[in-house]
């Protein structure tokens, strides 16, 4: 298949690329360019990461010692709730959409995202949504304080702010759904000729499946919070037993969204790590198609495990058994993934640049989080672990050295492609080592705290937990502070670095994005690229 293709704006000619690139603020407000929008998403999510992170620092400061030291318990609860909502919906999810915007068109040989105007809207809803969410902290009632899971009846006892939380969640959902529609249309419709589905880079595959998950579950969350809203303000009885409803029903609906949601945050991470490890091991990804099928299986299973969050609520024995075994089944495709990453590294000629360091740390530390998840999946012992710091340790292992480390790995990996400059490898490595060590000081002791019985979501604790909490808090402060290094590295790379990046950037890098110059041109592919063995990322696979 050969073809001549032009990139047309309003007129078929493409001689004046700059005419649709206004300067200053207008450029960012009106842009339909996937790279601009990607940058907006990434900068926004970094900001949210620091806002959510500051809240975590407040929590850890309060927990530094037993007793009530710094904040009122009510405010503490607002902090845990807001921290989580912001980290999940404001930091990690938008960051992945930012990566999708930047990388998907480049990886599949497309000119841009499929629906560029809607792409702009997906982003520009978010600043409004999060302003609304954050504004609740300044209301008389304070912010939401019932935990990010918003369980009734507790969440219904929040004051004025509750409605703002519900509508902010609606806006985030609308943004996510539009973003996912765009991702799916781009991947299914804009691949360059020859970029067959099983030649797509894994990051593309994982995002395709993530987008599907988002479209399936974000509306369910919207339904759940709508029912909360009407129960609170319009007298419905969805979650009120006196009227024939059931508060437990909320938990079912919420977790039908909530469990796929955790895979929404981790599947793109799997994708990024599957791009990085082959590059620095200088070997093709081991078991490419197995990785694709494993991702799809995980996504499928994620729909039928939700009640593992509800073992202590009480459910029929058969229900508990079903959800326990279904959950444990997820370990199989996940194990396939970990095995394949390790096998990719096996006998590779490895080097350890910053992206690779983060990727390897991801494999090890995410696996720890996965294994503690398996422990939690055992219904009978979850009765002991549930709602303790063991759970906090578990999900932070998968989220922080999991999702967040993969985000950082990806940022270091593609920064030269985005900016045209190399970042400082020395400072990148310093950032890595300080983060990797402190994150373990921060979260590892929490396993023991949980096993010893310390409950989550409390501002105070009995004195036998004091030592490990202090250690954890110290780790937290170091981890928090070390993220400033990350900002420093990025700012330096964007504005100061003199070291020009080559097109390929990394010696072992393969795939379409590395055939483009660094920085990648404003419009990616004017003509569909030729897809052959040298340009596909997983050239060894037989197709």
């Amino acid at each position, binding site marked *: *298949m050969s*073809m001549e293709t*032009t990139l*047309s*704006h*309003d007129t*078929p000619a493409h001689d004046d690329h700059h005419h*649709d690139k206004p300067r200053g603020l*207008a450029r960012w*407000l*009106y*842009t*339909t*360019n996937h790279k601009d929008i990607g940058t907006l998403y990434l900068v926004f999510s970094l900001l949210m990461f620091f806002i959510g992170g500051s809240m975590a620092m407040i929590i850890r400061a309060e927990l530094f010692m037993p007793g009530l030291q710094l904040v009122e318990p009510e405010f503490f609860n607002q902090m845990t709730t807001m921290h989580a909502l912001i980290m999940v919906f404001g930091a990690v999810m938008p960051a992945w959409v930012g990566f999708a915007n930047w990388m998907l068109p480049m990886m599949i040989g497309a*000119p*841009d995202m499929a*629906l*560029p*105007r*809607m792409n702009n809207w997906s982003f*520009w*809803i978010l600043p*409004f*949504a999060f302003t*609304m969410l954050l504004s609740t902290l300044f209301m008389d009632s304070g912010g939401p304080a019932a935990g990010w899971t918003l369980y009734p009846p507790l969440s219904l006892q929040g004051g004025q702010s509750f*409605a703002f939380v*519900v*509508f902010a969640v*609606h806006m985030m959902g*609308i943004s996510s759904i539009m973003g996912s*529609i765009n991702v799916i*249309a781009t991947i299914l419709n*804009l691949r360059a*000729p020859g970029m067959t589905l099983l030649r797509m880079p894994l990051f593309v595959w994982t995002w395709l499946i993530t987008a599907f998950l988002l*479209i*399936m579950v974000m*509306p*369910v969350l*919207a*339904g759940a919070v*709508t*029912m909360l809203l*009407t*129960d609170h303000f*319009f*007298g*419905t*009885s*969805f979650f*009120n*037993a*006196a*009227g*024939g*409803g059931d508060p437990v029903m909320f938990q*079912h*609906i919420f977790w039908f969204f909530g469990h796929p949601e955790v895979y929404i945050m981790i599947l793109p991470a799997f994708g990024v790590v599957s791009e990085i490890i082959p590059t620095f091991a200088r070997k093709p990804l081991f078991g490419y198609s197995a990785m694709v099928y494993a991702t799809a299986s995980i996504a499928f299973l994620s729909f039928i495990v939700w009640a593992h969050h509800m073992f202590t609520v*009480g*459910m*029929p024995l058969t229900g508990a058994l079903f959800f326990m075994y279904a959950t444990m089944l997820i370990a199989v495709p996940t194990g396939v993934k970990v095995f394949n990453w390790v096998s990719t590294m096996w006998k590779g000629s490895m080097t350890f640049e910053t992206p690779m360091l983060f990727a390897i740390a991801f494999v090890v530390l995410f696996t720890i989080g996965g294994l503690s998840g398996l422990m939690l999946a055992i219904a009978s012992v979850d009765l002991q672990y549930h709602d303790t710091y063991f759970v906090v340790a578990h999900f932070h292992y998968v989220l922080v050295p999991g999702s967040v480390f993969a985000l950082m790995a990806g940022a270091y990996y593609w920064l030269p492609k985005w900016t045209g400059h190399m970042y400082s490898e020395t400072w990148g490595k310093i950032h890595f080592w300080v983060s990797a060590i402190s994150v373990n000081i921060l979260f590892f002791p929490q396993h023991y705290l949980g096993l010893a019985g310390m409950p989550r979501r409390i501002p105070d604790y009995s004195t036998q937990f004091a030592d490990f909490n202090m250690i954890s808090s110290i780790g937290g402060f170091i981890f928090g502070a070390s993220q400033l290094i990350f900002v420093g590295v990025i700012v330096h790379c964007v504005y100061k670095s003199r070291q020009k990046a080559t097109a390929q950037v990394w010696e072992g890098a393969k795939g379409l994005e590395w055939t483009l110059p660094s920085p990648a041109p404003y419009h990616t592919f004017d003509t569909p690229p030729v897809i052959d063995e040298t340009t596909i990322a997983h050239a060894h696979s037989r197709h």
Partner: protein
Amino acid sequence: MAQHANDSYYVPHSTKWPIIGSVGMALMMGSAAYWVNESSVAPWTFLAGALVLIYMMFGWFGEVIRESESGMYNSQVDTSFRMGMLWFIASEVMFFAAFFGALFYARVLAVPWLGGEGAGAFTNEILWQGYDAVWPTAGPEDLGGPFAVVPAFGVPFVNTLILLTSGLTVTLAHHALKKDDRTKLIGWLLATVALGFIFVALQIEEYIVAYQHLGLTLGSGIYGSTFFMLTGFHGMHVSLGAIMLAVIAIRAMRGHFKPEHHFGFEAVAWYWHFVDVVWLGLFIFVYVY
């Protein structure tokens, strides 16, 4: 396959409409939040937000329609639009699924448990002894007082026939469009719009009867909650669909759409079939069964 589709990539200009939409949406949602908290200005700011959103839609869709009519879109753009619409409808299906899920959960599990079945033995024994768990119910405390249900084979059945007929008329309009028979196209479209609005009118009438004569309100326990939320959201979707159909009819009168190229029409027709199917689910599980 891609030979024709890819011969010219289309990338639009930068656009001001989304940010206007965001401002409108934020104004609307923020006002809604103040409104439920009983602010007296909120209804007005809500209205302002809605107007901004409507202005945005006119501007945005107008631009897309102009571009489409001037032949700037190739088949690849068309496919992107189609995928966008289909996945949007998929997300809508899941939104309704949440409320259907609540209905099934209440009927199959929550209410029988409150009546002492299975896991609920103690709740019944200790809190609500003697509660007879039959559907429909306003719960063990009979929230909202006694009520009667809307009989299925009255207005709802008529509405079912109306919506099914409208599914047929919109299909006839589509066939007419494909044969480039403009008169029939516009005629069948207007018939569909009319049926849509009649449906909504009858639904409103049904609500009035429910509130004034049957004692059935949003506050009538779990039955009232599921009944009004499901039919209410469905009714909103029918209204929206009917408005979109009206826009399509106006465009058809202005000579828009070609026999081989009429995505706007098809998108709205898909949407219409979707609200139709949701209604069938409603009719069966909310009214009949």
